[in-house]
């Protein structure tokens, strides 16, 4: 379980959020520039909050002026908006970079049907393939939490629908908490077990909207 209670001053407003995530898909939903990405970055350790506390499975990742576990020790998978694949490495090298075991990495590639791309470089594969490589790369490290920053925004409609279904399937399989950032309302409703509305860095009355996941 993830517990987040953080404050961070940005140039135009202050981020001040508090929420818990269990083994569910929680969607951070809000307009561009509302601080969603910064919240994700604070959780994975790329950014540092000013105040507050972040707990993951009873381990403190951040506590004001006391604890700041560096990114590389947090065991959090982070999928970036443009995937941030290593452009100078093949698909296999990308996935193998932080893999726990070779078997897991290979299973993930089969699972996500990207095994045939293993010797390709990122510039030579399609957007949907890149996204699947990025997901495989993140899961191969056996993260305790997965953060997805606008994971479907760069995809065409067909690929997006397919990828969304795949995410739900993977979540069933892995049973880890997932936080997904999106500015699409439809996507939030479709994928989120819980939706947190973010506006100018604040959660809007902690409104939680439950949806039956579409695969049930």
């Amino acid at each position, binding site marked *: 379980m993830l517990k987040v209670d953080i404050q961070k001053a940005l140039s135009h407003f202050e981020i001040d959020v508090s929420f818990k995530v269990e083994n569910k898909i929680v969607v951070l939903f809000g307009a561009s520039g509302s601080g969603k990405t910064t919240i994700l970055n604070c959780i994975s350790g790329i950014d540092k909050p000013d105040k507050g506390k972040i707990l993951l499975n009873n381990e403190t990742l951040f506590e004001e002026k006391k604890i700041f576990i*560096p990114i*590389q*020790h947090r065991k959090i998978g982070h999928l*970036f908006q443009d995937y941030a694949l*290593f*452009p*100078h490495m093949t698909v296999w090298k990308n996935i193998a970079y932080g893999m726990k075991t070779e078997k897991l990495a290979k299973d993930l590639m089969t699972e996500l049907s990207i095994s045939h791309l293993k010797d390709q470089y990122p*510039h030579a594969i399609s957007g949907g393939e890149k996204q699947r490589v990025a997901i495989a790369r*993140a899961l191969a*490290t056996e993260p305790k939490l997965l953060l997805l920053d606008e994971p479907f925004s760069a995809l065409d409609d067909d690929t997006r629908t397919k990828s969304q279904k795949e995410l739900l399937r993977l979540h069933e399989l892995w049973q880890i908490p997932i936080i997904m950032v999106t500015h699409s309302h439809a996507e939030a409703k479709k994928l989120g077990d819980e939706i947190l509305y973010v506006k100018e860095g604040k959660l809007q009355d902690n409104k939680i909207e439950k949806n039956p996941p579409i695969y049930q």
Partner: protein
Amino acid sequence: MDVTNLSPLWLSFKTAGIATIIVFITGIILARFIARNAFPGKSILEAIFMLPLVLPPTVVGFGLLYLFGKNGFLGKLLMNSFDFQVVFTWYAVIISAVVVSFPLMYQSAAAAFQQYDSNIENAAYTMGASKWRVFWTISFPLAWPGLLAGLVLSFARALGEFGATLMLAGYIPNVTDTIPLAIYFAVESGNMELATFWVVIIVTLGFTAILWLNWWSKRNMMRYTDRRR
């Protein structure tokens, strides 16, 4: 034409080579720590780094003489600690070359490290990679085209250094006579043939370096760009 003494060629290559190695390493380290972080006084520090690029080499030489001369701060320090004098030695040639070529390396390295998306490094960190591993497997290879450009430019600049070298190292045949100095003093003594010989060599070297750099960067800069978008 009788060119019996090739020592300027050897000395030029030796000093420019050593200077380039020093500048390559310090330029990368400083660009890494300074270019990506914000702190008070950063602009002033960067302006100081770039100063040798815009100042006349004689001014750089004057400053170095002021520092390393008999009464200079570093000059005294080296004299008292190691009984060593820099001025009029081939070490002075290296120091001059380092100072004038550093801005080119720093500028290239700072730009090279900003050329790619910093989330590529962050992604590697989230996968548990150490800073050292991220630097060697991600940052360095991705910045390499820019770093190599800086390396070649710095070497060419170090090879061509004249003003600061003359002020700090003087012209001592077989000790501090780099090719640019050899040209000047050959002309001064009326030996146009010798001067021409060195001019042809240095023009050829410079031209080849630039030509190769242009060819190489055209081939490599676009290596990882997305051709499908």
